[in-house]
């Protein structure tokens, strides 16, 4: 998952939560980057036809942007579910964020063969909790090293 994909996922989730455009500051906060970096990437997404940026209103994903963001979110869900259920990693959310950049779609598709993802993915993703609503949090002190 490259940087653009991470931005798409963040904007999509903010847009869904706010039911409207995502503020640049909120995007920068979600990704822990400076507003200047966020603006630069938002400009690239707009150039690629994936987002519209209106001054003082915020960023809205285009239909293409939403489609790609949902693919990215599904891929993230596969990684989270793999860490939580196959490896039984306690901090699966934190670790999914850390390794997502290295896991390409073709790899996630293969991992998806063994994770029990629900048909309504990614609509079951809870933005506030950064996880799928069906994913139970492993008990503390899980077996993962």
């Amino acid at each position, binding site marked *: 998952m490259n940087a653009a994909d991470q931005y798409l996922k963040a904007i999509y989730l903010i847009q869904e939560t706010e039911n409207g455009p995502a503020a640049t500051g909120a995007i920068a906060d979600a*990704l822990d980057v400076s507003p200047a970096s966020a603006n630069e990437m938002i400009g690239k997404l707009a150039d690629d036809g994936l987002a519209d940026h209106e001054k003082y209103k915020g960023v809205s994903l285009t239909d293409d942007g939403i489609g790609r963001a949902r693919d990215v979110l599904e891929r993230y869900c596969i990684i989270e579910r793999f860490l939580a259920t196959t*490896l039984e990693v306690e901090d699966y959310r934190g670790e999914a964020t*850390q*390794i997502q950049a290295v896991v390409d779609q073709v*790899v996630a598709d293969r991992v998806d063969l063994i994770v029990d993802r629900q048909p309504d993915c990614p609509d079951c993703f809870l933005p506030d909790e950064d996880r799928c609503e069906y994913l139970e949090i492993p008990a503390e002190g899980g077996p993962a090293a």
Partner: protein
Amino acid sequence: MSVTDPVSSDRQIVRLLQMGIVLEEVVEARASKHYESLTSREDYEPDPAIQALLEEAGTESAEHRERLEALIDELGAETVAFDRIQTLVEERYSQPDPDAFDDILYDQLHGEESAYKFYDDLIAAIEASDAAFSIDRDRLLDTLEAIREEEAEGVREVTALMSEER
């Protein structure tokens, strides 16, 4: 969520190596299931080339798994038990269609291609990282590069067999 250096700690390396092990185990388990499903059919006519491919895929994946396990062991972490992944694969395995040879070859190709892509991205992420790991970086990269090359060879073999079968 943050846009961070993807591989900056032993823990991240461990998780990714564990994912590599699981990818190998999925190939191994699915090759075995494909073979079982082929030979159990009443109209089965042995195809030595496909049998050899499945056998080699299983053997090679088991060997890759052992090499990854050695790295994980050096990092002080645990592997992912094969029988666990085998069970997961079996739970979600669907019988190939009547034109099973095509399905099986496509699945093998998908397995080899995804493994190649995984190792390629992991190698690039390690090379781009300045982090110090508790495992020798050259040994880590040499092992991953050797496995990546074998996956590339696997892609070529499956592709050649697909051309012959047509």
